[in-house]
């Protein structure tokens, strides 16, 4: 494990969110240090992606505080938020590349829009990142011509093109074959070690999480049930964590009469 700086790049305190009347996240408290890889885990519907959207300022915070790179997200003006976001990178689950642009144009977009660099420098930077993602030669291809794994890596190349201080991954290994998935895991570790990035990964892939994480946060039904190192997670006595680690299905003993009543209830 890499020795971490104690400065926090992300602090979430007492975050509560609702979707209509339904509570999605309850009392979320979380901090991520500089140069740390934090993995946020949980089964589908546990609130991982919602938490990510709130951290990124894509949803309006009603209760709680989120500090991203020492700035309180809710108190920033629109322009200040855009300025802050230039210091972070986000790799979306689908890649979220623009279909009307080539892969190269997609990757160069943040540099074209946010910097005054000349065209040649932008091209060189984009090639460096594509090579890092093992995507050399794909610059002139359209996103529709790439495979799922290549799309994710191209999305990642775009996320790191500005050399962000903090990088977010939404489900990096979902839907990928084991070799591509392992390659992405190595890439995440390489980004932390070579470019000194702090990285937050949202995933439900156990193997990947235990390979890359410095610390793991486990979410269940919108609540954090444990935050700790891999060892702490493995030693936990919490049945929900044990079920998850041992990939046990949650079984609900079925009462035939009760089940029939539920089905026929008006």
């Amino acid at each position: 494990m890499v020795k971490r700086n104690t400065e926090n790049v992300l602090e979430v305190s007492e975050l509560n969110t609702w979707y209509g009347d339904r509570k999605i996240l309850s009392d979320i408290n979380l901090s991520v240090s500089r140069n740390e890889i934090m993995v946020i885990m949980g089964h589908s519907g546990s609130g991982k992606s919602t938490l990510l959207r709130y951290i990124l300022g894509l949803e309006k915070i009603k209760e709680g505080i989120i500090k991203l790179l020492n700035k309180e997200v809710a108190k920033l003006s629109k322009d200040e938020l855009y300025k802050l976001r230039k210091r972070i990178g986000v790799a979306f689950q689908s890649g979220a590349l623009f279909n009307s642009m080539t892969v190269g144009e997609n990757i160069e977009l943040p540099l074209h829009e946010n910097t005054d660099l000349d065209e040649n420098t932008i091209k060189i930077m984009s090639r460096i990142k594509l090579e890092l993602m093992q995507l050399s030669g794909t610059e002139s291809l359209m996103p529709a011509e790439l495979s799922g794994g290549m799309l994710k890596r191209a999305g990642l190349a775009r996320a790191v093109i500005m050399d962000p201080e903090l990088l977010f991954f939404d489900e990096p290994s979902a839907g990928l074959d084991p070799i591509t998935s392992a390659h992405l895991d190595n890439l995440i570790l390489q980004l932390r070690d070579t470019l000194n990035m702090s990285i937050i990964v949202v995933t439900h892939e156990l193997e990947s999480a235990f390979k890359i994480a410095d610390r793991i946060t486990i979410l269940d039904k919108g609540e954090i049930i444990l935050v700790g190192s891999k060892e702490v997670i493995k030693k936990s006595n919490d049945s929900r964590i044990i079920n998850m680690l041992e990939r046990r299905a949650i079984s609900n003993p079925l009462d035939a009469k009760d089940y029939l009543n539920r089905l026929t209830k008006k």
Partner: protein
Amino acid sequence: MRLQLKKIMLSNILIRLGIAGIFLYEAIRSLLIPPYSINLLLKQILFVGARSVLVIVVAGLFVGMVIALQFYDTLVRFGSISLLGSAVGLSLTRELGPVLTALMVIGRTGSAMCAEIGIMRIDNQIDALECMGIDPHRYLISPRILAGILCVPILTAIFIVVGIFGGYFVGVILFDVSAGSFFQNMNDAVLNRDLCMGLTKSIVFGLLIVWISCERGFNLHLDKSGAYGSEGVSRITTEAVVISSITILFSDYLLSALIL
């Protein structure tokens, strides 16, 4: 119960209008604040304007021809075929040119804009822009709005000119109306005020088409009335076309009443 339902419906309409108003404010604000991207604007001018010319020319030609045919049939009964040029010129400049061009642009461009932006919303591409520190209003909407305001008046002018030649073809070449009286009467009847009315309408229509189409796609995620995915895109595209068309016809009446 009915009163409560009416109140809910009214508040929903007000909320939607408010959201659309904020959307337009953000787009215009982004339009006025530098940096300006000429490349994005040129791309949209190519899409909204240049690629619509053919369809506008074809539509204008046939509309001009059919107007001349209809007016000829009516005017000949009163022995006033010399007024054919002024009838064709006035109807195209004041009403048919701006309205039919706008309806053609809605069908060709507005629907495509709405679907494209809607797909960008469901595929997280708009979120990706935000996360890259790029204002999606500035990057996606402002160039489209400016292209709409610039291109629809030019397309309207093309429609009117081609329509007049369509009328000329039917009136002068097919029905032997004197070319001199056709153009002289048109010149006498069509005043600067009529041209200004046509121009004003086409500018307003250009803004309305892009505003409604882009807003429907951009705010797809806020619309809780139906499905979100591909079905949602299809629904909001239909909505954008219907709302734009009705708004154009309504604002056409309103502008005519104000200017006349």
